[in-house]
């Protein structure tokens, strides 16, 4: 609302084409099993499927009944069963059980498994091992990309983060490469590709390979540059509390596949309402990127405007009234409905978030980011654990502490962990093991205190030797180097100045002016410098794996066509709504348009829950 939109911002490409492609392929696949059939859908494919083809479409193509995959014996009476699943061992195993049960009862059915977005050899292997490879037909529904909004595309693969970064299982990398390939073949060719992170590099290579295998067509590019980034390059940002409206809604109500369910406390009625949150919702579109403190004011202003629009009626004659009713009233009513919903949501969030606790929580977070009053922060976290405030929240603070401080002191590490275990159960021992492996929560190695020294010394001595030193140290272990990065990239603005959230001056506004997200800052810097030159020390601290490749038609990048100013950012391992808001802000400032492709929308809770290994 307060932002001045640069008028020359380019138009975004039309991504609904991706949906059409996916739908057509699905229908084709369903028709491969002619006749009436029951369809079993993997639980986490249901919402994405809903975006692509609704129940009516499915029924039109001979789908009789729809079931959710629940890993239980089935009750279907149909002679043909179709399974629409992710390529997971567990699900395939369940299907094997279903088929083998049928066999034991002498029941003959036809089975078809549609893997989305691709099948894995492991799955086929399992079918073979279970002796049903000949009984089922398998297919792939290459539904890689789900456009959640005009500028957000999701792969809807939340397990990407854990599989890839924790388990070292790279099976999804190729999927990411294929997704990129799809975008390239529909909206490319890209002029330049930048990236950072091991996984990004592999995804890039996988994509290049697919490009080389396939045929190439010359076409008008709709997307200019591409930036690939691994989630583990920046783990701090997703662990911060989100305070931008869309992010906050996600943190509190959990947006699922672009859709949120508002409970009775928001709707002020006795039932919940599901609402699509995207740019179609005019009210939401205007507040999604705003800092939460600004939202209420905006909403009340909006309510007043709406009232004025309604009030116009009073002075109208019949004719005017007629046009009003036919043209404006519907829009006003719609807007009214949405407005009341968002006001309800804001109120509900206010109740939760303006409390003392939340303010203190934010204060602690900001202190951690600034590296200020760390002891107080630790005792705050301790108290958090002792009082058994939400487990995930405690873990989040612990991880933030470790990430920003380059690990915990051994004494703190032990005592906090012991308290955590006592408080939330011993089974989190495994969770801690995971967190350690990923570098989210680690102990400071005795030698590592040196790096703190070194970075201080480095400033005094000339930069070159410092560079060499860092080089030697960064190979030691996985560590975040957050402080040094913060200084170099100016991520944490000086706290003594007042930050006017109404007129954001940089991307830090998404965290109340306390922190510019590292991921977005990297993107900004690389785009500005047209590569990684000058960022050598930064990439060293981020463990390298950066690249910048000029594509087939990027030779004449000086001609800034519209498509050149459309940047596709691909987050491997998920991104948060806050980061998307920050990129939108950056886009407005620089006259660019960002398209965010992510393996899934994430936030602190989702990220940490994926790390849990307790028995639940």
């Amino acid at each position, binding site marked *: 609302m307060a932002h001045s939109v640069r008028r020359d911002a380019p138009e975004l490409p039309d991504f609904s084409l991706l949906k059409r492609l996916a739908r057509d392929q699905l229908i084709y696949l369903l028709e491969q099993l002619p006749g009436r059939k029951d369809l079993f859908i993997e639980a986490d494919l249901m919402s994405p499927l809903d975006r692509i083809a609704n129940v009516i479409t499915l029924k039109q193509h001979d789908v009789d009944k729809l079931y959710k995959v629940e890993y239980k014996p089935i009750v279907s009476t149909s002679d043909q069963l179709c399974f629409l699943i992710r390529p997971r061992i567990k699900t395939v195993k369940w299907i094997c059980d279903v088929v083998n049960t049928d066999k034991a009862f002498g029941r003959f059915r036809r089975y078809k498994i549609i893997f989305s977005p691709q099948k894995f050899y*492991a799955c086929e292997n399992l079918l073979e091992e279970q002796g049903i490879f000949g009984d089922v037909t398998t297919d792939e529904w290459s539904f890689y990309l789900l456009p959640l909004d005009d500028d957000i595309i999701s792969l809807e693969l939340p397990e990407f983060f854990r599989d890839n970064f924790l388990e070292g*299982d790279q099976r999804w990398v*190729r999927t990411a490469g294929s997704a990129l390939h799809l975008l390239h073949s529909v909206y490319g060719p890209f002029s330049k590709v930048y990236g950072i992170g091991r996984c990004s590099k592999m995804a890039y290579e*996988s994509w290049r390979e697919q490009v080389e295998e396939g045929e190439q067509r010359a076409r008008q590019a709709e997307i200019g540059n591409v930036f690939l980034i691994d989630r583990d390059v920046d783990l701090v940002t997703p662990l911060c509390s989100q305070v931008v409206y869309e992010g906050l809604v996600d943190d509190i109500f959990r947006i699922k596949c672009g859709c949120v369910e508002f409970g009775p406390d928001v709707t002020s009625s006795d039932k919940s309402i599901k609402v699509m949150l995207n740019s179609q919702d005019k009210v939401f579109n205007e507040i999604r990127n705003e800092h939460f403190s600004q939202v209420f004011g905006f909403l009340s202003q909006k309510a007043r405007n709406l009232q004025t629009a309604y009030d116009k009626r009073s002075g109208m004659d019949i004719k005017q009234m007629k046009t009003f009713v036919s043209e404006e009233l519907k829009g006003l009513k719609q807007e009214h409905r949405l407005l009341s919903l968002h006001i309800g949501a804001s109120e509900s969030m206010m109740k939760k978030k303006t409390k003392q606790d939340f303010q203190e929580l934010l204060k602690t977070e900001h202190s951690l980011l600034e590296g200020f009053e760390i002891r107080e922060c630790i005792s705050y976290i301790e108290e958090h654990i002792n009082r058994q405030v939400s487990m995930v929240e405690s873990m989040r603070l612990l991880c933030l502490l470790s990430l920003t401080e380059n690990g915990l002191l051994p004494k703190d590490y032990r005592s906090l*962990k012991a308290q955590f275990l006592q408080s939330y159960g*011993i*089974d989190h021992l*495994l969770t801690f093991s995971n967190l350690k492996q990923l570098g989210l929560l680690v102990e400071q190695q005795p030698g590592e205190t040196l790096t703190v020294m070194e970075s201080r010394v480095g400033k005094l001595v000339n930069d070159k030797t410092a560079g060499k030193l860092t080089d030697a140290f960064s190979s030691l272990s996985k560590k975040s180097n957050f402080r040094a990065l913060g200084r170099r990239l100016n991520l944490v603005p000086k706290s003594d100045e007042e930050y006017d959230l109404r007129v954001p001056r940089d991307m830090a506004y998404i965290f109340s002016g306390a922190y510019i997200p590292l991921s977005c800052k990297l993107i900004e810097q690389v785009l500005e410098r047209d590569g990684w030159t000058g960022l050598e020390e930064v990439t060293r601290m981020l463990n390298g794996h950066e690249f910048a490749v000029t594509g087939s038609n990027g030779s004449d990048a000086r001609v800034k066509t519209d498509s050149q100013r459309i940047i596709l950012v691909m987050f491997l391992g998920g991104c948060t709504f806050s980061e998307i808001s920050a990129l939108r802000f950056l886009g407005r400032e620089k006259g660019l348009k960002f398209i965010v492709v992510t393996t899934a929308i994430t936030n602190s809770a989702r990220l940490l829950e994926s790390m849990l290994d307790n028995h639940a």
Partner: protein
Amino acid sequence: MAFITANWNPLGEAFYRKIELYEMGWSLRDGLKECLVAAAPYGGPIALLRQPQRPSSSARPQLEIYSSSGVNMASFPWKSGPVRQLGWTVCDDLLCIQEDGTVLIYDLFGAFKRHFSMGNEVVQNQVLEAKVFHSPYGTGVAIVTGASRFTLATNIDDLKLRRLPEVPGLQGAPSCWAVLTQDRQTKVLLANGADLYILDNTSCTPVTPPGLSPQACSIVNMAVSFSYKYLALFTDSGHLWMGSANFKDKLSEVDTKVRTPPKQMVWCRRPKSQQPSVVIMWDRLLLVAGECTDTIQYTLDEESVCVAELDGVRIVGGSRHELLQEVPSACQDIFKIASMAPGALLLEAHKEYEKSSQKADEYLREIKEQSVLGEAVRQCVEAAGYEHEPETQKTLLRAASFGKCFLSNYPPEPFVSMCRDLKVLNSVRDYTVGIPLTHTQYKQMTVQVLIDRLVYRKLYPLAIEICRYLKTPEYQGVSRVLKHWACCKVQQKEEPDESIAHAVSVKLGEAAGISYSEIAARAYECGRTELAIKLLEFEPRSGEQVPLLLKMKRSQLALSKAIESGDTDLVYTVVTYLKNEMNRGDFFMTLRNQPVALSLYRQFCKHQEQDTLKDLFNQDDDHQELGNFYVKASYKEKKLEARLSLLQSAVDEYNKARNEFAAKATEEEMKLLRFQRRLDEEKGEALLGLSLQETLHALLTSNFHKQAEQLYRDFRVPDKRYWWLKLTALAEKDDWEEMEKFAKSKKSPIGYLPFVEVCVKQHNKYEAKKYVSKVTPEQKVKAHLAIGDLEGAAEAAIERRSEGEISTVLSRCSPTTDRALLERLNRARSTAAKK
């Protein structure tokens, strides 16, 4: 040009011509006498199996393979069993059907490829006769055994033997038989005396040809046309019956007046033929019979063999190779004496033009007046295609080109493509190549197949030239030929690996769509593993490298290639392969060096084979992971004893991993579990499995203060936490008395504000007030506010002279009710600010 018609013979409406294709390059002492001969259609190769001069046990028959022009391609003594029949497959492979039913397959150069058998039953009964036939399904073999039973294999590349039903009354071999392909089914038509039967998969049906003259008492020969549409029968009365192969129509019947059974009988037709005709061969006589009663007779001066073609019959003799065919109508129109067809006039016009005679104009005018110039050009172009002599072709094409000049919008394609086709045809008809294809055959067989045939003959340069000349897409053309060349090259045993690999990479370097893995596979088949590996290095797609590497048992290399490719499916393929191939220890060692594969396998084990996972960790001495493994296993265990023992294992592993923290935590968990069990047994509480905190909470709310106290000490629960716990537990129970006691027991490590807050939370302001006084001065304001005591808060804030706190209190005051307070606070604030 009258001489062109010199070799034309009229038969009814049509003419037949016999043209010489080659003078045979072979030198056969006795011609084709005493030889088993097989010549493949479409100008294919010729195989001869020459019986030894004097039948003796030591002398071996000689197998020889020649091109159509008689150039020797292979020759070797036959060392296997007696051969009944020779035949060629569609891929130019030679089939030798032995008496015992074994079929041996050789390539064009006499290299043995493989063999198969026509069934066990045949071994006993022997093959009496055999036939090789071609159908849309490929090349097939049919035999009849000594037991008078027929066996069919429709496609030798996908061998399925079908034994046909018995034929009633048949003894020994039938008098004649043929294989028919009708309605997508392969059948056998046979004659036993005068009776005709059709044998299909399930039944034997007697049939009668409509209108077969009654004089005949036996059918002695039969022929099925190239397209399986027509059938000809020759009876012992010397009658030739022609009709459709489905026995619905009769075309004609001719009395040949020769009663001896013919040696060979073949159809001589062409697409759009004017009349059906059959060529019958006896020892010294060749006879063409058609619809009319007349026949054409040629005398044969040597032993010959007829080869049926799509558009005629080739006659291969000891010294000559000829083509007998019906003269195509385009040629007839142009060359028939005194023809006034447009093409003939145009040819005449062009001839006059060459002579610079003005008659050219007259002829042209004549054609133009009838406005048939287009037709004339078309005729000339078409006729050129049917002519074998390049000179005649040229004359016709020049005439066509000449005529074209007078046409404004005649499409150039037919002319251009005919020129191209003829250039290709003439080059393959060359004596050294020896593929006498006609234009009709060439169109039917397609360029692709022609290239294949050239490749089979190892005529790579010519094949590549043709591909380039015809601008065949690389993938189907040049690259394909090069691949074949390379596959052949790797079989050259005498050359060292290095030079072959180099030669291959140099030649194939820039060609598109080359699959090096196929070439490598061939090299491996020839036992040249090292060469195969070298060649695989050139393969850009790892997906193609890996399966072959596995086949060659280079599993380590396969694994690293798979990992390089980044395709986890591929890695997984190798891993499963290795798992089955190697012993466990080696397998684990291999994985250990490949972290990507290892994590992939771990993922798999997590879902599928928990125990293997354990072994894996054991192998690596990864005690940390082993500990985690036991902890995880303990969740799933219902029985406490088993659970404890699992946890004990975990403790041991953690100790080995020097992870004291985890070891201690696990030990504590065990202690807790035991404690919980004891309490559950004693007091009937359901505590088992709760966390320490939950246990404490449960104990406190159930008034087991002593036990809680014990846990608190045993587990060294931090004071702060214990206080928080007890406080909330007491408040939840509304046990205010106990709480007061607790507060007074000693100085609270968490201060007293929590007391206030907890009470307020339970809506007990009365109790809350009791603790306000105990709160430290810094938190006083908060405490007062918590119980809603504004005045107290104001008091405290003013006392502390803290501007911030005063503001906090101010914000809570409402201007209507607390006016006095407001004023006081404002005043205090201004004084505080002054300081």
